[in-house]
């Protein structure tokens, strides 16, 4: 039976992992390659590497890191941040990424999803949907949650799938960084609206939150950043908890 996935997220800027990286075991490590190896050994199911700076002057630094990670980590690696066109996707894949993730570029030019699916295959396209609640629905935002596109998030997720997305990375802007749990209603709605896997992101503060996203939200995978970086919970602890609750994990 297919298991649910736990995916650590590395937010990297100019070659350094940025967010809350105060590991007890790895105090001096802000190095993304070492962190990636650490999570690989911890039994992470995949890794997502987001270049949050995503500026062109540092692009080569990013690709070098991706290349080094892919030589040492033998689980799927998704690369996102600053991906704007087919060439950016090609460069990330050639550097060793298995999948790429993008948000703004898809909303600005939906054809990019179709073109990329045609050239590289849907399996490597993780379309990121940044959603924020507006009354009884959710709107899609771009540019790191700064600009409202006035587009309904669920409709957009469906459109992404039709265009050729392989997975949806669903970020709740409201829940992000709050550590008070995922937006379960949003997660469940999107998960039930698209026939492709949904990765829930934003709000993980405890193993209970991950459980709720997988069971109530019906997500296929969960993204976790600060909950893991802060070393409050290890991946094995989380997986043990999920197993006890009857969720199938690796």
């Amino acid at each position, binding site marked *: 039976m*297919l*298991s649910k*996935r736990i995916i650590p997220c590395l937010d990297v800027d100019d070659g350094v992992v940025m967010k809350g990286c105060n590991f007890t075991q790895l105090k001096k490590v802000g190095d993304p390659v070492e962190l990636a190896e650490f999570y690989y050994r911890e039994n992470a*199911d995949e890794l997502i590497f987001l270049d949050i700076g995503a500026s062109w002057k540092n692009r080569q630094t990013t690709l070098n890191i991706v290349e080094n990670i*892919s030589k040492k980590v*033998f689980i*799927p690696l998704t690369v996102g941040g600053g991906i704007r066109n087919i060439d950016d996707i090609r460069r990330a894949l050639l550097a060793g990424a*298995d999948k790429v993730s993008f948000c703004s570029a898809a909303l600005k030019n939906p054809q990019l999803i179709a073109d990329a699916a045609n050239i590289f*295959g849907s399996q490597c396209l993780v379309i990121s949907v940044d959603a924020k609640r507006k009354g009884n629905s959710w709107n899609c935002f771009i540019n790191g949650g700064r600009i409202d596109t006035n587009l309904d998030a669920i409709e957009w997720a469906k459109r992404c799938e039709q265009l050729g997305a392989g997975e949806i990375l669903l970020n709740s802007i409201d829940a992000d960084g709050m550590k008070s749990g995922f937006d379960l209603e949003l997660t469940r709605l999107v998960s039930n609206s698209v026939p492709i896997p949904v990765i829930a992101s934003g709000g993980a503060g405890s193993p209970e939150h991950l459980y709720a996203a997988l069971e109530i939200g019906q997500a296929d995978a969960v993204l976790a950043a600060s909950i893991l970086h802060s070393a409050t919970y290890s991946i094995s602890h989380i997986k043990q908890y999920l197993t006890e609750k009857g969720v199938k994990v690796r």
Partner: protein
Amino acid sequence: MIAIIDYGAGNLRSIANALQKLDADFKILHERDEFKGVDRIVLPGVGSFGKASQKLEESGFFLLLQEWIRADKSFLGICLGMQLLMFNSAESKDSLGLECVKGTNRRFCNVKVPHIGWNNVQYAPDEPVFKNIDQNSYFYFVHSYFIEPDSQDYVIGKTFYGLEFPSVIRRGDVYGVQFHPEKSGETGLQLLKNWVELC
């Protein structure tokens, strides 16, 4: 020398990285006349069956691979590279496979497609490619179609996703795996190591 076939259907980096990690002797083959000195072949592949079949034709690999497989030489097809061992596929009805195993490829239904993530492989006993690998170990899958052979004779591994499908086949020295061993952690590396060490 192991040859990874590059016919323009996907990224070979991951499989090259894994073979490098195992200190295996390999090269990436771009042209058919570079075949000399090669005694084992890895056929990777992502994308659609039809496009891959067409690209194998255009690059001149198609007939060579067919001969290779008929001669029962050492071969490992990964993901689409395994599906190409069949006669054809529901994905691209007019395209030909390498015709190693009688049967076709079918699309999953009534489940989320693609089948993405870690799933168990239940394998047949005494298969050397599973040496030092626990029964029902997890491997990483990404695919929308699965092989449906006419007979179960060559099936040596099975996985459940809405239904039971063959995830590993073997006909003599020709192997096919539906999952990505190069992305299946230490278990996947062990399977590749076992394959590399088969004589």
